[in-house]
């Protein structure tokens, strides 16, 4: 059901492009106005999101610890999994952001038939697919710079020559294109095949996957099957980059690709995709575990009125003695 909701949303988007460009001829809307609006939504939405997170106070260290805390000098601490210094935190964050270290700990539980016991074992597939997916995505983004910038940056040329190293087909097939589609498809299949994950999956889990698979798919078709006039594409994109937009002269599928990218950008700050910013701001990861060495005072603690036992006894000593209740200090006045 959730899959169908997401799929319907995607089909609707596709229908909108087809009707808009092919039937109504709104190439300027889909080629210029919507992309500009989407980029603005992405940038402003992300800024608002991050600032709202930045304003949220984190008075205490709520680090998740996965190793020995730094304590006595003869106990060896785990400097990365239980960081006590900023350097350790930087190491931990780098491993988290670039290698998805916490996902590497992913485990799978299953009740073995016949054995009647729960077996917990490592499960690296999600980590591997996630890593392949995100890194391919980054490389694909960097490859696209050749259409956004003139002259084409050297780094882009280097990346694409490495990516198309095997020179299969004309235009050359990039290995990250294949890797991206494979990984995204497997991430989708995982949600369908594993009953526990399917139970947890919402339309908002399927939708970004469908969106990304469609973007990648349309890009691959444009490059390898339709063989779009790439010079025209660059003219149009450079027109957008220099605020001298001109639309037209390109097939509907190009507008489909562009529109879905626009949807992705506009959807980004309001959805789970914002984990791109969130991963950096996870208080369970980006704080040093120094709770016991440094005193952290909650800044908005209410100044609590206290009435100590000494003060109490001082006040009621006479009555307590009269009632035979033992007191700590006999009357000294």
């Amino acid at each position, binding site marked *: 059901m959730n899959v169908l909701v997401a799929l319907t949303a995607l089909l609707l988007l596709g229908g909108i492009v087809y009707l808009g460009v092919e039937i109504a001829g709104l190439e300027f809307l889909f080629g210029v106005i919507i992309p500009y609006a989407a980029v603005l939504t992405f*940038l402003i939405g*992300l*800024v608002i999101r*991050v*600032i709202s*997170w*930045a*304003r949220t*106070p*984190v*008075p205490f260290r709520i680090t998740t610890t996965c190793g020995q805390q730094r304590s006595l000098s003869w106990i060896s601490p785990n400097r990365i999994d239980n960081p006590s210094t900023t350097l350790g935190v930087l190491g931990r964050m780098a491993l988290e952001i670039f290698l998805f270290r916490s996902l590497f700990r992913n485990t799978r539980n299953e009740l073995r038939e016949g054995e009647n016991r729960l077996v917990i074992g490592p499960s690296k597939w999600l980590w591997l697919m996630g890593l392949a997916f995100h890194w391919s995505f980054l490389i694909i983004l960097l490859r696209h*710079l*050749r*259409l*956004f*910038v*003139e*002259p*084409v*940056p050297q780094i*882009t*040329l280097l990346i*694409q*020559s490495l990516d*198309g190293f095997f*020179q299969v087909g*004309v*235009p*050359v097939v990039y290995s990250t294109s294949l890797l991206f589609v494979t990984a995204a498809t497997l991430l989708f299949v995982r949600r369908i095949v594993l009953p526990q994950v399917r139970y947890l999956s919402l339309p908002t889990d399927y939708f970004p996957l469908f969106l990304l698979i469609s973007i990648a798919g349309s890009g691959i078709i444009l490059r390898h099957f339709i*063989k*779009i*006039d*790439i*010079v025209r*594409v*660059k*003219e149009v994109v*450079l*027109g957008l*980059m*220099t605020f*001298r937009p001109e639309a037209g002269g390109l097939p509907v599928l190009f507008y489909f690709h562009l529109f879905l990218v626009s949807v992705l950008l506009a959807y980004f700050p309001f959805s789970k995709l914002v984990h791109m*910013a969130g991963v*950096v*701001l996870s208080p369970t990861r980006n704080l040093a575990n120094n709770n016991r060495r440094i005193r952290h005072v909650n*800044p908005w603690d209410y100044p609590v009125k206290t009435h100590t036992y000494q003060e109490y006894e001082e006040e009621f000593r006479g009555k307590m003695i009269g009632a035979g209740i033992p007191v700590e200090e006999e009357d000294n006045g």
Partner: protein
Amino acid sequence: MSDYGKIILGLVGFLVLCTSPFWYQVLSSDGLPAPELKLPVGEQGCVESKEYMRALHMDLLNRWRDAVVRDGERIYVSTSGREYQMSLTGTCLGCHTSRADFCDQCHTYVGSENYCWSCHVEPINLRVEAR
């Protein structure tokens, strides 16, 4: 709380990184440089139509290579019925003599690497070297 400054700094860094293609474009060039092709003078047209060649020339060259190298066929019959020798050096470069004035104009513009030149050589250079 105390990290507010650091987070804003990171955010600004991200925004600069995100919009860097735009700044690069604004700072690195004046106007929109478009490829300028030097077309051969006195020719009626290419092997196929202009639109076809523009989008699919690499496809055609690939098929020519396969036909010549694998099947030994050397004659290409175009959609208009004319016969051509399937040869990059002879037919293509016979008219489009300069790689820099023709091929590289678009290929550099869109950053598309063509590996024709790892085997083939421009006839112009060949004549110069032979002298």
